[in-house]
């Protein structure tokens, strides 16, 4: 990493990332949170910050495929990684991902503030547990806070997302 300085004299470090499939670079102070880097340096404001101490899960992103809390990471610590934010969940043609589609169908969101963290968390969860039962679905979202929905429809969306994934796989299989 090469050192630069910002206007206030603070030393900056160059961070290179792959974000939603695109190579991105930012020059940030060592103390810059990854959540701030994504939101304010890369202008990907879909990742939200709800508590800044790793409890609410709103800032969850996929880091090399794993769900992590971007408010608990320093941007300089993830140099060279592959990141997916909520903006990268839909397909290149804009098709909603199964989890996104399920949230819309099941009314899994109200104010939408915690939603990006749920979408990324469930995306990672279904990759590991593609056909969750009720308890597995509850565990999957057990570390994310939502103040609006009471979680009932989010749980329904977990199951529906698994179903959509299977439906799409069957469709793709049928076509090939």
């Amino acid at each position: 990493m090469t050192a630069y300085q910002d206007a206030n004299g603070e030393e900056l470090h160059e961070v290179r990332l792959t974000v939603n499939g695109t190579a991105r670079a930012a020059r940030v102070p060592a103390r810059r949170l990854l959540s701030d880097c994504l939101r304010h340096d890369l202008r990907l404001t879909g990742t939200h910050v709800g508590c800044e101490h790793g409890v609410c899960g709103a800032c969850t992103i996929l880091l090399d495929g794993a769900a992590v809390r971007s408010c608990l990471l320093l941007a300089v610590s993830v140099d060279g990684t592959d990141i997916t934010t909520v903006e990268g969940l839909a397909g290149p043609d804009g098709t909603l991902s199964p989890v996104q589609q399920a949230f819309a169908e099941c009314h899994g969101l109200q104010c939408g503030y915690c939603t990006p963290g749920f979408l990324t968390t469930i995306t990672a969860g279904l990759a590991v547990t593609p056909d969750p039962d009720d308890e597995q679905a509850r565990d999957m979202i057990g570390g994310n806070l939502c103040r609006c929905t009471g979680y009932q429809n989010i749980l329904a969306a977990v199951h529906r997302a698994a179903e959509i994934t299977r439906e799409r796989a069957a469709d793709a299989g049928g076509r090939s």
Partner: protein
Amino acid sequence: MSSLFGTRVQRVEDDRLIRGHGAYVDDLGAGALAAAFVRSPHAHARITDIDVSAAQDVPGVVAIYTYEDLTGRLAEPLPLLIPHPALTHGRTPYPLAHGEVNHVGEAVVMVVATDRYAAEDAVDVIDVSYEPLPAVVGIEAARTADNLVHDDVPGNLAANATQEHGDAAAAIAAATHVLELDLEIERSASTPLEGRGVLAEWDEQAGRLRLWTSTQTSTGVRAAVAAKLGLDLSQVDVITPDVGGGFGVKIVHPWPEEVLVPWAARGLGRPVKFTEDRLEHFIASAHERAQLHHVTVGYDDDGRMVGLDVRFWHDNGAYVPYGLIVPIVTSTQLLGPYKPPAYRVEFDSLYTNTVQVTPFRGAGRPHGCFVMERTMDAIAAERGLDRAVVRERNFIQPDEFPYDQGLIFQDGRPLIYDSGDYPALLTKLKDLVGWDAFPAEQAATAAEGRRVGIGLACYVEGTGVGPYEGAHVVVETSGKVKVATGLTTQGQGHQTAFAQLVADELGVPLHDVDVVTGDTRRFGYAVGTFASRAAVMSGSAVTLAARKAKDKALRVAADALEVAAADLEITDGVVHVKGDPDSGIGLGTVAVLSNPLRYAFDEAAAAATQFAGGADLAKPPIAADDEPGIEGRAFFSPLRSTFASGMHAVVVETDPQTAEVTILRYCVVHDCGPLINPLIVEGQIHGGVAQGVGGALYERMAYDETGQLLNASFMDFLMPYASEVPRTLKIDHLETPSPLNPLGIKGAGEAGVIPGAAVLAAAIEDAEGIPIRSMPISPSDLFELRATHGGR
């Protein structure tokens, strides 16, 4: 075209939100200066010195402000929004502390810097010297008044208020049976996932302020900011972008930050933004808190109330910017679906050195419901009667509406219930939860050594309070319909529900209707989103506005088609002769024809220009009493609030060892009149129930005796996760229309939360055989309660 009213339409707002394309305040204003605040670490102290010298040298600092820098009306206390004759000692904070702080978290110094990191660096090196004063924490300390929160408020008493109908004392004195109860109920706070936020831009050339704020009332903020900054209303635009939840706390306005940030932006000539962090939201916004109640009730052999007297004490925190709304709502809505022939209620609203108390979803109703429902259960227990039977005997009957409770409600209007059917709700609830079969279920589980109990609780909720909301509907020449209403939205799906109403009224496809809320540039008259009022108020207003636009469209189309307007209807965006859908013209074309033009900008517009022919040359292009365009603008102002109702029942199991409470099933019956969108209403109930369960079993703002909030983080404040909400949640609806608005609807936003503490207390009491007089209740509380009741 079939009606969209009553259908489970998927929300139109979801697409942008699930793609990460929402726009909340902190997502806006890239490059704006950032504000951060020095906040009091003391609950009560005099400020003896503020030394900002070290902060001035912090790189990136642009400006530092203390109270001494404030000018004009900004140097005055913030407004007391809802004055009341009983509020004899109303006190509100200054935007920045003026010599004294009255709770931990009160703003003392504002720093503006090039970014938040630099602003917080400066905050860290500002040295404020305090002379600590004794802190008043809790109702007992407040009413004992050995120490005062405000030197000029004797007894810490902000207000004492009484309401009475009939002669409660005489009725109780003459009653066959009398019982007294001491009850305590505490609530926590709204805690939306997005805290407060405000972004301001001052346009020097235009002399105009643009403000984005995470609020429940953009028009309220606009008026307050204009007044505080000495601007004309026309110089201030307030835009409410996407809001990450409100639940009451964001109706408070203006916050200190909401006036300081635009003031700094104007002074510095640069955009300034404040984004509240989670700690700040805990210690510097607003909570609800405790009430202590003493109940005296007289009743007959059958458990019918003959007189009810309630004396209570309400902890209002350090300031009362929102007046007495919470205790007034408690004192009136306490009555629920019941009709005591005589009722007297008196409360003291008391200052403490804690965060100010303002409405949190339910706004005092959960307190009142808890008190009334505990009283019902106590009467049932004393008389040896079924708890449902005692309630039924005290219900207002369906043929008694409108029912006048003889009190004044929170809107200053008589507490008259418009409609409802409480016996029918109770029947539905008993069926849903299996009330009559429960004794057998309880006996069977008891035989297994398990403690299982059932409870029920009833409530009535005044919704759709006035004074008014308005809306504007315009049909563009594309045929698309643009709707604006002034109140704001925080996740309730207003864009969808209002679009359903307009689409139905105008006969256009849902996707052609676009709704904007909370933007004063689009609609300048509004009240706000609180008290479960948005669907009733703005729903009615958009309907009336769409009706006007439709009337105009039919009139213009009737001229063009040379038929009577009464013979026309609109289907799928086409105005046509009834029964002949192929005969018509598109609404977009009607919009073109309604606006005589001199200049053509496209092919459609050419049809409306002055040489296009077809004009009646004996008349002016626009008649004297007419206007161009297909538009409607309307206001809805109801006579009174409309009263929704509901009942909850819950079956719980308590762990004999750990005293943990597990919800086995939770049932809701709910009557908010006809449902515009059942998907959205059920979502509101789900969320409300989760907040009710959280408030009953997990959430509490834990202040110590010095006024420090010990659990000011999501680590320590136990908001429910998915693991804490009911596994089984059953909902059933009754739809009793309201006669007070054109749609017959009632509000639904707060319903789910109101009976939470009441119903869980009842079920735990039933499982444990120990009277539950205080909520919330943690496993530790229950464990200790068992010990004081013979170690059950």
